[in-house]
């Protein structure tokens, strides 16, 4: 493991009493959880449980109705994500994300996609374009470094041979990997992945697991939404289960796997067990 992540497993992301209302619908209801630094935290739940809504609140695409989302960076600075503007969540707080329906710049090449991700670093190096236009060497070295960084991630994501092809030309699995590489090129401390294994075949799923572990071991914490239980159980250190906008379980993969409430949510239960579980649910939430 990289330095810094081993000292203490402090929380990098703290979500407290998060609620999100769409008109009359309570999509998220008083949801709290923590993601630890240097860990892979998985957010799971049945369809429509509100996972993506939580994600959109964390990454600034929605403004939560209530609640606090605190991100603490390695240097000790803390940010309240719900107060930042959408692009500042990546630029200032170091949170980057991928999307459930892949959002690449399909008309740009794979390499260009990774260079766009390094926009803020390059902007500064180019003196907000002015110095870069004059052709100062500082920008040239920065541009070279940016390409090297892109090359590093392209190699990790096994895309190096496709670097000069348009991103829209890649296969589905490769597009998923490229989106992760692009998110990593912004140099985040927390990477949020929205269903990274959706639509991948078992082999691609395996390589994805290795890629995610490499990212974690490099010092970036991960938060992921996933349906594919084989991915979740194998790689996550911590699992949070969401149903109808409420947390029903929180713990290690093994703990969650054996939690009757989780089993009930995913598989349904025998008739005689319903009452017992409903009681439990009521205790937990009311």
């Amino acid at each position, binding site marked *: 493991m990289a330095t810094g992540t081993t000292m203490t497993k402090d929380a990098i992301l703290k979500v407290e009493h998060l609620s999100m209302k769409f008109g009359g619908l309570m999509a998220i209801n008083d949801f709290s959880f923590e993601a630890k630094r240097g860990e892979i935290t998985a957010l799971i739940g049945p369809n429509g449980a509100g996972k993506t809504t939580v994600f959109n609140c964390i990454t600034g695409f929605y403004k939560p109705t209530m609640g606090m989302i605190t991100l603490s960076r390695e240097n000790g600075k803390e940010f309240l994500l719900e107060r930042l503007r959408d692009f500042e969540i990546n630029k200032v707080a170091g949170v980057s994300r991928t*999307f459930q329906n892949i959002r690449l710049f399909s008309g*740009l090449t794979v390499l260009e996609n990774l260079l766009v991700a390094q926009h803020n670093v390059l902007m500064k190096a180019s003196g907000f*374009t002015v110095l870069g236009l004059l052709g100062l060497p500082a920008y040239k070295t920065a541009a070279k470094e940016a390409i090297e960084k892109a090359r590093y991630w392209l190699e990790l994501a096994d895309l190096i041979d496709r670097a000069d092809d348009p991103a829209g030309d890649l296969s589905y699995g490769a597009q998923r990997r490229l989106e992760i590489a692009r998110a990593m090129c912004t140099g985040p401390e927390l990477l949020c992945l929205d269903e990274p294994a959706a639509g991948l075949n078992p082999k691609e799923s395996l390589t994805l697991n290795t890629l995610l572990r490499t990212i974690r071991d490099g010092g970036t914490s991960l938060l992921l939404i996933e349906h594919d239980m084989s991915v979740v159980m194998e790689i996550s250190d911590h699992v949070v289960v969401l149903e109808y906008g409420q947390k029903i379980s929180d713990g290690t993969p093994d703990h969650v796997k054996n939690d009757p409430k989780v089993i009930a949510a995913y598989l349904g239960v025998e008739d005689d067990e319903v009452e017992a579980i409903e009681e439990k649910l009521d205790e937990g939430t009311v």
Partner: protein
Amino acid sequence: MAYTTENNQSGLMAKAVKEGVLAGLIAFGMFLLFVGIETYQDINNQLVWRTRWGLLAVFVAIAAIGRFLTVGFIKPHLDARKLAKAKSGVLEISDKKSFFHKHFLKIALVFLLCYPFLAMMIFGRQGSLKYVDNFGIQILIYVMLAWGLNIVVGLAGLLDLGYVAFYAVGAYSYALLSANFGFSFWLLLPMAGILAGFWGIILGFPVLRLRGDYLAIVTLAFGEIIRLVLINWTDVTRGTFGISGIAKASFFGIWSFDVGAANNFNKAWGLPSSSVYYKMFLFYVILALCLITAYVTIRLRRMPIGRAWEALREDEIACRSLGINTVTTKLTAFATGAMFGGFAGSFFAARQGFVSPESFVFLESAVILAIVVLGGMGSLTGIAIAAVVMVGGTELLREMEFLKHIFGPDFTPELYRMLLFGLAMIIVMLFKPRGFVGTREPTAFLKERKAVSGSFTKEGHG
């Protein structure tokens, strides 16, 4: 197959005749009232009508014979050629480019540098005036405007229907500041650009929150507002009368092109007095301005800001997730485009010597946008070709005297220029839906620079 070749052949001919007759009938029905009958005022100012069966017959015959030839001969011929090519297994796409193709830009540049002298050698001093001014300068102004708009529409994907507003700001900046304060062209040229860019930012702030169709409509409205202000603010702009007697550009302050001036350029160089030298000078000025626009655009595309513009065109939400401030990115695109519009505007004012709101109507915006779309959004070469075709084509229509022999002595080709403009656009869009140059040059590469096919790039929606 059950058919023999002969059967096929006769069947084809029958089909061609049938389709030809059908096309003739449709043409007859369509043109009967438009072309076949003409109304005019006679000597007593009464509206009377007469028939033009001959002209109608020409129209119908063109439609029928054209259709017959297309179905009967051209299409089978093309199909056979395609089939033969597919059978031979040689791909139509070959990597080898002809010499002309490879060095197209250099050849074009050399030609442009020689163009005024060539025109003077071929057509004489007075005869070349038309070629340098109407064709050369006119086309280059549109090239520059289209390249400026290309930054906004082609790179950043923001549909701007009011681009002519910045052209107007540039032109009036030069006209007013030079008339009221006597500043020179070379001082006011950058100033006009900066003022137009400034206007771009002011207009951009409220407008750029909108996306897609809404943005297009609001930019259209802003374009009209500027024009209406120019018409109605008569104290400053003299309204529809316009501002005349705008100072000419000087040769960098060393020589003047005013006839009466002591340091007259023609006198200083011992040239005969003719306005063609001024026009030639202006030609090189606008050529230099165009080259600066192209250079800046090419450089900007390789800067982070240029990449962010293109990323914005591809996917705005992904941009935000990568920490790109989309508002300032859009504003810089808008302002940069506006600045080049301003440069072109001040040049226009200096060349024309007269500006009025008439020059800045919506049609101008539409023509500039049409050039950008026809050329292939984002491609400088394509846009330059489109400007030559579109602007040069309409200028050429004035020269089409021979059309009078076909359509009669009353036919004035200039009046049909918008019709032909539209027709040309439809034809180009049918065969080249992504414009003349649909591919995109990547701004960085690891191993080799491969052009990105137009089918991957997006048009942008905000």
